[in-house]
């Protein structure tokens, strides 16, 4: 079991993905990036092909997305987003850029650079657990429901079709992310 750097030397059983991403963010660790690549790049390729990218373009997109992960690592915050959510969002942005030839409007970034504080291990772990629950819920869906959910998040459904695509329990993960946001607002207020 790997340990988190910096937190009083205490071992934190964070997921491998989170630990890789923190090593990339905090130490520009290339071998951690290699591991993250080996895990995500083949999935990303499958994902972008399924969501409509021509096979010839798929690897370019995978490359762009993984390069963004390396370059934007300072934006990663495990208290509010899991590695897979964060990469999902980068991948969708990249595909929309290509499709529409311009970026989509994005919400304001959550935090300014350079005010990193120690992650709250309890919050990170709780969010990881909620994400596991979500993954299990996805696996338990019947094939039709699952297909619908996949189509929705691959960007194949219109918003009126999405209204019918239910089946994933998002309530608890929302509350958990909300707690992370409240903590951040509190920190930002203290900084002013």
């Amino acid at each position, binding site marked *: 079991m790997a340990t988190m750097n910096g937190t009083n030397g205490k071992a934190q059983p964070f997921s491998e993905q989170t630990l890789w991403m923190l090593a990339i963010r905090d130490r520009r660790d290339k071998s951690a990036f290699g591991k993250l690549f080996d895990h995500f*790049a083949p999935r990303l390729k499958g994902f972008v092909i399924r969501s409509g990218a021509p096979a010839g373009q798929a*690897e370019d997109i995978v490359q762009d997305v993984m390069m963004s992960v390396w370059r934007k690592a300072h934006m990663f915050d495990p208290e509010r987003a899991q590695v897979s959510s964060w990469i*999902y969002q980068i991948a*969708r942005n990249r595909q929309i850029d290509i499709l529409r030839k311009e970026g989509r409007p994005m919400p*304001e970034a959550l935090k300014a650079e350079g005010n990193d504080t120690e992650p709250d291990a309890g919050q990170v772990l709780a969010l990881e657990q909620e994400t596991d629950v979500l993954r299990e819920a996805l696996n338990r869906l019947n094939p039709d429901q699952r297909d619908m*959910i996949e189509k929705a998040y691959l960007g194949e*459904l219109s918003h009126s079709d999405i209204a019918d695509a239910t089946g994933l329990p998002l309530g608890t993960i929302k509350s958990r992310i909300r707690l992370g946001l409240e903590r951040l607002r509190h920190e930002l207020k203290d900084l002013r």
Partner: protein
Amino acid sequence: MSEQISHHIPEALIAAYAAGSLSKAYSLVVATHVSMCDTCRASLMAHEAAGGAVLESVAEEPLSGDLRKNLMDRLDDPIEYEADTNTPDGIYPGPVASALRSKSVKWKKLGGGVRQCIIDMDREGSARLLHIPAGKPVPEHSHGGLELTLVLQGGFSDDTGHFDVGDVEVADGDLEHVPTADPGVDCICLAATDAPLRFSAFVPRILQPFFAI
């Protein structure tokens, strides 16, 4: 920050935004509201978590042999950090402020003291700012499809309720409403529709402003 917001973005629109399947105009309203509302930001991030779960579960595709090496070789390339331009300006949250900065936009009179400024228009829809003088109504109008109206300054009321800064009104094509700005301060809203603007010569001139709402 978001404690007073009582009218939020519908769940399906947040999911569609997360999935990247919303038009640019609606995306602008969602991104702007999320910048003002932590409840909807948490919703958006929950949908991104669901998207991440889907990403984890799709079938892997084998990569070409040199992809990994090419990428690893580029990790030492210098990184140019771009300044964050998605930042607020006065009453305009980041997404609106950056749209206004990136192109020259003009305010135009719509009659009755109401002014509008189109910030984005394409085949899928349009987004505009509306400026309604305090206490004044927007001329009665109906619209083809879904209309999202987000309050950025002041507030307004219509048959469906009262809307304050940060609130979003979601109106479908059937709703004929007469929004009236609150007294005291002019109301400024961001509004998006999926109906393309039609400034056709066949539309009587006097009706044009209303088609453009």
